[in-house]
């Protein structure tokens, strides 16, 4: 186990390095730069700015400098948000996104897993069809449509919920619905199909023949076998969701990290692009290791090598 974790950490470092390198060169291949804007800036000013941030140096030299700094924990200053380091931006914005995202993941698990099981149990019945329709909608409808519909009905017409900011618990309801809509639908589908598979297994018949009651058969014997695909999905999904969604944060005016991802790319804020990308990559790698360990706990047949 320890050996496995050590090996995974080593592998994680390589992965993150690869992601960082690829991102660094790709973003520099994209035309444009952080200091181009509609307002004409004098060439001297631009040159001065570039010199200040080291953008006038050759690409390879910049790469080496950046990587060395990053290894020492210094991810640089934001090129666009004057006076802020990349770390301080992430530190400030990530908790906001993580709170909304974390709640959304919890909600989608709490809804998706039982509803998926229910659909499998009631296979072919009305309830199954209803759940299938809802989950297909959830997967097909993009989040901006969900956001807009929510805003229009609950926020504007019925005036039940506040439409922006994160001042109270009521503010969380709409963003959480919008964020958890797709994962809930996806988990329902995963759960339904793997549950159907498990329900047909011989050991379920054994459990029934032992006289185990219906609820326990599902909870003890079926769920643990059927949950693996959901675990696989939830790991990376959690990483994506807690780092925020650009669309949802924009529409509900939430000061989260999701906006920074897109904003940084649009503004060619090189250091911020690198910072957010490395941050997300690290989260995903960590989640994958956790998923593997959870796998081992859920299914003893899995060997961690």
């Amino acid at each position, binding site marked *: 186990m320890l050996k496995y974790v050590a090996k995974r950490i080593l592998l994680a470092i390589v992965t993150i390095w690869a992601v960082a390198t690829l991102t660094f060169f790709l973003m520099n291949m994209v035309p444009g730069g952080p200091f181009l804007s509609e307002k004409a800036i004098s060439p001297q000013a631009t040159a001065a700015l570039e010199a200040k941030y080291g953008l006038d140096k050759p690409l390879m030299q910049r790469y080496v400098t950046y990587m060395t700094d990053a290894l020492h924990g210094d991810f640089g200053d934001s090129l666009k948000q004057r006076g802020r380091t990349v770390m301080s931006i992430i530190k400030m914005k990530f908790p906001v996104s993580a709170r909304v995202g974390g709640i959304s993941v919890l909600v989608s698990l709490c809804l998706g897993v039982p509803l998926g099981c229910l659909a499998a149990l009631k296979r072919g019945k009305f309830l199954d069809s209803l759940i299938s329709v809802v989950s297909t909608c959830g997967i097909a409808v993009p989040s901006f449509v969900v956001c807009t519909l929510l805003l229009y009905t609950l926020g504007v017409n019925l005036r039940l919920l506040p439409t922006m900011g994160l001042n109270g618990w009521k503010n969380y309801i709409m963003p959480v619905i919008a964020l958890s809509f797709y994962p809930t639908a996806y988990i329902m589908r995963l759960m339904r199909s793997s549950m159907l598979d498990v329900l047909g297994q*011989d050991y379920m*018949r054994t459990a029934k023949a032992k*006289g185990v009651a219906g609820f326990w058969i599902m909870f003890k014997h079926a769920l643990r076998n059927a949950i693996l695909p959901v675990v696989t999905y939830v790991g990376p999904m959690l990483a994506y969701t807690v780092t925020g969604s650009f669309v949802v944060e924009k529409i509900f005016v939430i000061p989260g990290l999701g906006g920074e991802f897109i904003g940084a790319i649009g503004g060619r804020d090189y250091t911020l692009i690198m910072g957010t990308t490395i941050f997300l990559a690290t989260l995903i790698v960590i989640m994958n290791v956790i998923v593997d360990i959870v796998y081992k706990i859920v299914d003893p*047949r899995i060997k961690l090598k």
Partner: protein
Amino acid sequence: MSEYLVDIKNERLSFFTPAGEVKALNDVSIHMREGEVLGIVGESGSGKSVTAYSLMGLTAHPGKLIDGSLYFNGHQIETMSDKEMRKIRGNEVSIIFQDPMTSLNPVYTIGNQIMEAVLLHTDKNRAQAKERARELLELVGINEPEKRLRQYPHELSGGMRQRVMIAIALACEPKLLIADEPTTALDVTIQAQILELMMELKDRLGMAIIMITHDLGVVASMCERIAVMYAGKIVEYGTTDDIFYAPKHQYTKGLIRSIPRLDTKEHERLVPIEGTPVDMLNPPAGCPFAPRCDACMKICLREMPPVTHFGRVHYTQCWLNQKEEMEAQKEKGAANE
């Protein structure tokens, strides 16, 4: 109340599939005394397993009992709720399945799965249940029971897993053990061991066994009575001697002809039963075996044969037997005059 442990009368059971009604059981009657070993033989789809499962209330989803009464150990099975059935399952009647590789839950330890059956049906606490599980593993001849309790199914061999299945089935000392092809998925040497174990445990615990199999060798060595099933009907029923030494039904005769014998010559061919099993969706009007029967008569294709008795136990459902028996009676009558 009945003098029997198991008394199934005129059971009819159908599966209502999208393609239509499949009459899986057609007027099946079985009775067994305590401690008796009954073999049910027949090819796939003949209704062997369905008969046994219905006795446990485990008929799979589109299946439905149409008619008949199922009595077991003081219970009228067909009138019982699922909750009442759960108290019997695994307690008074247990089952061992065909494939031990897939019949144990892969994510729980052996100990957990045996203890579950004990905890469900007795007042024992966890420590006592664990002790009982250890005893059971010893009973079924598994070495190092302490260690095995903590192991997972994938860490055991096929024969060992089938022993565990037997341990689970015996957890509450059932009155009846249903063995659904318990040795089909095992190696020949292991097969013999498992059968021996079952017989030994039967003698020790005094339970009745229903042995479902398509292996005539297995029933010959284990069973006292044998029911031969074909297309959802019991076509011949009798003691083991009746079936092996005086088979009457053409199907039974065919089955026995198809087993290799010690005195079979080297290049001699075994005699197969020609044709394929009936389509249970559209069963023929008459005897279901008629299309494959060497001695098929016109009436066989039109009408279901009645029951013909030979002695107290032995009976068949066959027009040929009926005809022969009537002729024999007539001759007897003529001789008496």
